Structures are given as structure tokens and as C-alpha cells.
């Protein structure tokens, strides 16, 4: 967006507010889809050639912009080292973890500093994090949507696997920011699919969503009642998907064409073949395939199903576990929604039907349904809606206690947003600091859970053991993102931690990426930041102005006065053009107006509830 600094601020604000167009994106392991919804009618935004699915494949060549999609796939055979596929599986992962997940990422940097947690890939001679690869895919989808809708787009709802952990969600958020997209909400893929089904077909009752994607498996149980989509329980595996079936087929082919070892270089070519095999054998009983190196190999559906069966059974196990945790039986389920291209496999449809004792729903295209749901949510968030999505945390969150044990603070399947505080104490006399180690997972031992980060609460006044009262508060917001803060209650020493740095981009990454994507000179970037700060400030002033007019009676005379003063102070800074000063006063105004905001929200909620509920007995 090109804005002139000389333009009157109020027009800027109006322009920002009128850009009420938001899209929904399904950022998939194998394919990505962008959709848009108008009057609750979502549709996929296709590319210029009329293609709906954008392969999540990116090629990096010297001196050109990243190449995304089908064109990148075409380059796989010629220059496999310049192309990256399935990078979603690496989101929020460290180098050492990645080595365990996959064999098809031939580009992983091996000499990584252990401090440096985010995995780095060398693609076409360039160093890339999975976050940047995701950003390049998102940028392509953004362009595709802008061409289709003929207007600039900044706002987006992006879907993530329900079972994505904190680090992977943060990574997705960072990718959107790099692509110049503002995330209105991260929503879970199965929830998005249910939304698309529910609104389309007006279904009610308890539904199961079985989502077998390219790289991840999710299973969610939802209760749908009159526009409320309530997730009851969710489970999954972030390293189980169609990719794994591909790998098994490949191993089989290797085994069958024994003697001729497929070189690493043609690994991805081979993966391309395995995908064709899967598709072909979904409709045909048997076929013959030409392999790189001139070999031919036959494969029939029965053999394919034998190969895939253990993985399919794994997904059924997860379904069973989630049902038990929700105290439900397969017969309690009113319908099973199939999501993800992988569910086209006849074997999966058979097993799902057998387990749930009913035929699954497949009215909507399993490749598109998630993006359609995301688009519906994007519309709901821009224009308001009667629909309500109530999601849950997929994994338990806790902290390390004595003896390497994990104390759960927020159990999995807790509805979000949620805020839980728990008190801990010191175990030594005179202890002045306390390490807080945050973990995610279901197991009891620290070593079996995922470490999300550590911080030190310092400055605890020396007391006898067990005297200090340290309240650790976990907050999970509607995007499923965690904030942890700790306060020593007798002295009110408090610390807040954002868990971003752990597996995300470092300062240096940002500098490097900015340098690589230099579009504006240094001064332009400064100007842009200044304008953004001004727009934000103007928005807040405008919102507060309105709030005071409506609910001014919630303020005491002194509060009213203080608020007006802080507003004036911010307004003054808008004219003399210093970004830091504006941001500072904005923050001050936000904190001064916080009690007013709380009272307004309470009134809004309270009043409407009193009106809508019948008089009490």
C-alpha cells in the first residue's frame, strides 16, 4: 500500500477501516488453497489458469524471485537441490528434531549451533527457514487472491492442524507477517472444515472430523447447536500423513527394483511418482510404473493397502482415544466429515465407515473444505456473524517441578481462551531466584514433553523455604497461543514471557530477510512505520471517543479527566512526527483506559444477557 505522509490522517484511518476484505487460507503440507466468502457463500479463488490447488512447493534460483507451485514442481527433476517440498512438517521444529521426522529434506543444515533452534535449509545455495518458505507460499496466495478479487488484501484467517503445538503456531504467525498479511485468527483445520459443513448443511449434533492431510493427521469431535461450534476434544499426530504413505511406497519400489539404488537426487522425482500411484490405485486395481533409471515396477491396490494399513490403524487408534477422552462411543456420532486429499484412498474410507458404523460425509471437496471454512470465519470476523467457534487446547501445558516431573497447569481439551494461575513456592531457605520451565505434552516426565522455553524469576526476597508465594499464570488466547507470567505475591515482582524466540526467527533473520526483500529504502521503511503508528493511534482515539460518548457514565470525574488528558497527549504527538513518542503515549493511553474497557465489556455482556434470558424464579 502506498500512502503519502502528507495525506490527512482521518482519510488514512477511513481507508484502513474500509479495507474490510479478508480471505481464508489453508496452508497445507502438499497443497495450499485460498478462498473468499461473501454472504456466507464461500468459494475458492483460483489462479489465472483456473487451478484451485497451489502445490506447497517452492524453488529458489539465483537472481529470481521464489517460484511457487506447479512451476516449482516442474523444476524438481532438473534441479532438485533448488526445490523444497512439504516444509510445513518443519514448522516450529529444531534441526535435531527434524532429523527424526523425515528423510526427504535433503537440504537440512547440519552444522547448526545448538542455541539456534529453528531449522535451516540450504535451497539453491540460499539459507532458508521453513518460516520463510511458508511466507513465500502465502505471498503467492495473497497475489492470487488480489488478482481474483481485484483489490489489495491484508487480512487473513489461516488454518493450522489442530494438533500443531505452540512453536508451530508461532511460526505460522511469523510467516504471515513476513508475507505482509495480518492474521485475524488462526483456526484449527478440522474446526474450519466443520464450519464449512455446518453452515452449508445446517447440521446439528455431535460430529467427528477425520482430517488426513499430506503431513498431519487431526481428529476432532464437535458439538454443533444453533450456530455454536463447540470442539469437545481433539487429537492427532503432526508427523502422520499422505507423505508417510508415499515413503512406504517408495521403499517398496526400491525393494522391488533391487540392485538399483535410487540416488538421493531423484528421491523427490520418485515421490512424484508415488503420488501418481496413490491416485491411480484409488480408482484402478493395478498398474505398472516407470522408475527413474529405466526400471519398471508393477503395483496393485492390495499391496498398496497392505503397506498403508499400519498407518491407517494408527489414525483409528487416535479416533478411539479421543472418543474415550470425551466419554463418547462411535454410535454417539451423528456424522463423520472427511477432510484432506488422503481420505480419497478407498482403504481409509472403508476403515472409517467400519469404525464409526456409518458412511462418512464427502459432499464437499476434501481438498477445499478447510479453506472454505477459513473464508467463512474471515467473513464472520470482518462483518460480524451469529456463528460462534469455541475451540480447545490440543495439548496439555505445564511446568517442570522437582525431580524432572511436569505439573500440568492447563490440561488438553480445555476451552480457549483460558487463563489459569497456580501457586508455587521456594524449596530452599533464602532462595532468590526460580527457574520456570514451560512444557507441552501429555507425559509425566520433562524429557518426554516438548520444551517451550525457560525463564528465571529473579529478585525473590530471601525467605525461609516454602514462604514465598509465586503465582504462575498461563494464558492461552483464541489463536491457541500461550503467554506465561509469574508474580511473587508477597512483593509483587512480576515477569512476563513470550515464548517466541525458542523456535522462531532471530533478530539476525529479520535483518537478513528485510535486506533480501528490500523494496523501499531505509527512509521509506521509517515512514511506513510512522504512518502505521499514526493510523493505530488515530484508531484508538476514535474508538475511545465513541466509547466515552456511549458509556461515559462508567467513569468517575477524575478518571474521565485523566483519560481526556492522555488522549490529548497522544493527539499532540500525531502532528510532530516521532514514532517512538507516539507508540509510548499510545501504550500509556491503553493502560489508562484498561479499567474503562473492562467495565464496558462487562456492561455489554451483562446487559445483553439480562435482556435475552427469561426472568429468574
Amino acid at each position: 500500500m502506498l500512502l503519502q505522509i502528507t495525506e490527512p490522517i482521518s482519510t488514512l484511518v477511513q481507508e484502513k477501516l474500509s479495507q474490510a476484505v479478508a480471505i481464508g487460507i489453508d496452508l497445507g503440507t502438499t497443497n495450499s488453497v485460498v478462498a473468499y466468502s461473501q454472504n456466507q457463500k464461500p468459494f475458492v479463488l483460483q489462479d489465472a489458469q483456473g487451478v484451485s490447488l497451489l502445490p506447497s512447493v517452492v524453488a529458489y534460483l539465483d537472481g529470481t524471485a521464489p517460484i511457487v507451485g506447479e512451476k516449482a514442481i516442474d523444476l524438481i527433476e532438473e534441479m532438485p537441490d533448488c526445490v523444497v517440498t512439504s516444509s510445513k512438517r518443519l514448522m516450529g521444529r529444531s534441526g535435531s528434531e527434524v532429523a527424526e521426522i523425515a528423510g526427504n529434506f535433503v537440504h537440512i543444515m547440519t552444522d547448526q549451533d545448538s542455541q539456534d533452534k529453528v531449522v535451516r535449509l540450504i535451497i539453491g545455495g540460499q539459507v532458508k527457514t521453513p518460516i520463510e518458505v511458508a511466507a513465500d507460499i502465502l505471498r503467492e496466495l495473497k497475489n492470487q487472491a488480489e488478482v481474483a478479487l481485484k483489490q489489495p488484501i491484508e487480512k487473513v484467517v489461516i488454518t493450522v492442524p489442530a494438533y500443531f503445538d505452540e512453536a508451530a503456531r508461532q511460526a505460522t504467525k511469523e510467516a504471515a507477517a513476513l508475507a505482509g498479511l495480518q492474521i485475524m485468527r488462526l483456526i484449527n483445520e478440522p474446526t474450519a472444515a466443520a464450519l464449512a459443513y455446518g453452515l452449508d448443511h445446517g447440521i446439528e449434533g455431535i460430529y467427528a472430523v477425520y482430517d488426513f492431510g499430506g503431513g498431519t493427521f487431526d481428529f476432532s469431535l464437535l458439538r454443533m447447536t444453533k450456530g455454536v461450534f463447540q470442539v469437545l476434544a481433539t487429537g492427532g499426530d503432526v508427523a502422520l500423513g499422505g507423505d508417510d504413505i508415499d515413503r512406504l511406497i517408495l521403499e517398496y519400489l526400491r525393494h522391488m527394483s533391487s540392485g538399483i539404488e535410487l540416488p538421493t537426487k531423484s528421491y523427490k522425482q520418485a515421490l512424484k511418482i508415488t503420488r501418481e500411484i496413490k491416485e491411480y490405485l484409488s480408482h484402478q486395481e493395478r498398474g505398472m510404473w516407470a522408475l527413474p533409471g529405466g526400471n519398471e515396477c508393477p503395483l496393485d491396490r492390495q499391496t498398496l493397502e497392505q503397506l498403508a494399513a499400519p498407518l491407517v490403524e494408527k489414525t483409528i487408534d487416535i479416533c478411539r482415544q479421543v472418543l474415550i477422552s470425551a466419554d463418547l462411543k462411535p454410535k454417539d456420532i451423528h456424522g463423520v466429515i472427511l477432510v484432506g486429499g488422503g481420505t480419497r484412498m478407498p482403504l481409509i474410507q472403508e476403515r472409517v465407515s467400519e469404525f464409526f458404523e456409518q458412511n462418512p460425509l464427502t459432499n464437499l471437496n476434501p481438498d477445499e473444505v478447510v479453506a472454505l471454512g477459513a473464508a467463512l470465519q474471515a467473513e464472520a470476523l470482518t462483518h460480524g456473524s451469529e456463528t460462534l467457534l469455541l475451540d480447545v487446547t490440543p495439548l496439555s501445558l505445564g511446568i517442570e517441578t522437582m525431580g524432572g516431573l511436569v505439573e500440568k497447569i492447563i490440561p488438553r481439551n480445555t476451552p480457549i481462551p483460558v487463563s489459569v494461575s497456580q501457586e508455587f513456592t521456594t524449596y530452599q531457605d533464602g532462595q532468590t531466584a526460580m527457574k520456570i520451565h514451560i512444557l507441552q505434552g501429555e507425559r509425566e516426565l520433562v524429557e518426554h514433553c516438548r520444551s517451550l522455553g525457560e525463564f528465571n524469576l529473579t529478585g525473590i526476597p530471601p525467605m525461609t523455604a516454602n514462604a514465598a508465594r509465586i503465582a504462575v499464570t498461563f494464558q492461552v488466547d483464541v489463536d491457541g497461543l500461550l503467554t506465561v507470567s509469574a508474580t511473587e505475591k508477597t512483593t509483587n515482582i512480576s515477569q512476563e514471557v513470550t515464548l517466541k524466540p525458542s523456535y522462531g526467527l532471530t533478530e539476525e533473520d529479520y535483518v537478513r530477510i528485510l535486506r533480501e526483500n528490500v523494496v523501499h529504502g531505509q527512509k521509506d521503511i521509517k515512514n511506513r512505520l510512522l504512518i502505521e503508528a499514526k493510523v493505530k493511534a488515530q484508531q484508538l482515539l476514535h474508538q475511545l471517543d465513541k466509547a466515552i460518548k456511549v458509556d461515559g457514565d462508567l467513569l468517575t470525574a477524575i478518571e474521565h479527566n485523566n483519560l481526556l488528558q492522555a488522549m490529548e497527549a497522544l493527539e499532540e504527538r500525531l502532528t510532530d512526527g516521532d514514532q517512538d513518542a507516539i507508540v509510548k503515549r499510545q501504550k500509556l493511553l491503553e493502560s489508562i483506559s484498561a479499567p474503562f474497557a473492562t467495565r464496558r465489556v462487562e456492561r455489554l455482556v451483562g446487559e445483553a444477557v439480562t435482556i435475552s434470558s427469561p426472568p429468574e424464579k
Partner: protein
Amino acid sequence: MFKDLQNPFEILGMEATFDVDQTALDAAYFARQSLAHPDRFIHHSEPERQAATAQASSLNSAYETLKNPTLRAKALLTLKGIEIQGEEGKSVQDPQVLEEMMDLQEAVFEAHSPQDVSRIENQIQDRYLQVILSFGQALQKNLNRELPGLFLRLTYLSKLKEDLKVRQTQASLKML
């Protein structure tokens, strides 16, 4: 127990009783969450979005508390100012309860065949329903002296039920 000294019944506008109607609870929760959910405040100022998140969070906690009989019982005891045994360093002073629960625990531990597990499961479920009934009655009749012991039983029994659930998951996985 009550974060920021909030009462879950009050938050959801429900009468503070042990017998909570699930449909009424859902309706109260959905009605409030439809208004307080941060999705409804996306165009509001940052402080108001945060206030909405706080409001939605306390609705969620209240809902989770009232949905679960053990947590609901605990909330009612807290409201009545009755001390809860076995928590925060307070010792359990009811040897009879302890003995009864240890017997059940042992039975769970020793149950191996599916029939044994299912028998003990039924036994625990029956006992659980009995205790829930007694707790509700004691509360209604203001038999405050009986409440802590009943609550203790309730806690143990729901813990045993959870343990059995874990075993059920494990068993169903082994069956394959």
C-alpha cells in the same frame, strides 16, 4: 479456588446448587460466550479486546467447573466456607474413607481380565453415583459435617474413574 474471588455460579448466572441441568448450563454458557468471545470484539480497541479475552476466559473456567461434579462440589464447599481435606497440606482425617478408597484402588490394580475390569468399573460407577446423590442431599439438608467426607470420596472416585479411562485406552490399543 476462585480466581480473583469469582464465583462460577454467579459468572454463568446459575443458581448455586449441586443439581445442575446440563442443558441449562450449556444455554447460559453459550449465551454469555456469544457476547464476550474475542471474535465479537475484533474491531474494538486493544484494551477492550483484552478485557473480552479475560471475560471469555472466566466464562470458560466457570463452565468447566460447573460441568464437572467434583469441581462443582468443591466450588460449593468453598462458597460455604467448608475446609477441604487432603489439600494444600491439610491432612486427611477420615480413616474410614481412606480405607474404603484404598480397597477400591487395590481392586483396580488387581483387575486384569476384561471381565474384572468391567466389574470394578461398574462398582466404581455405582459408588460414584451414590456419593453424588448423598452429597446433593447433605448439601440440601445443610448436613455440613458430612460434606467434607463425601467430597473426599468424590475426589477419590473420580480419580479412580480417570485411571480406569487410561487403562481402557491402553487395553483398546492392545486388542489390535
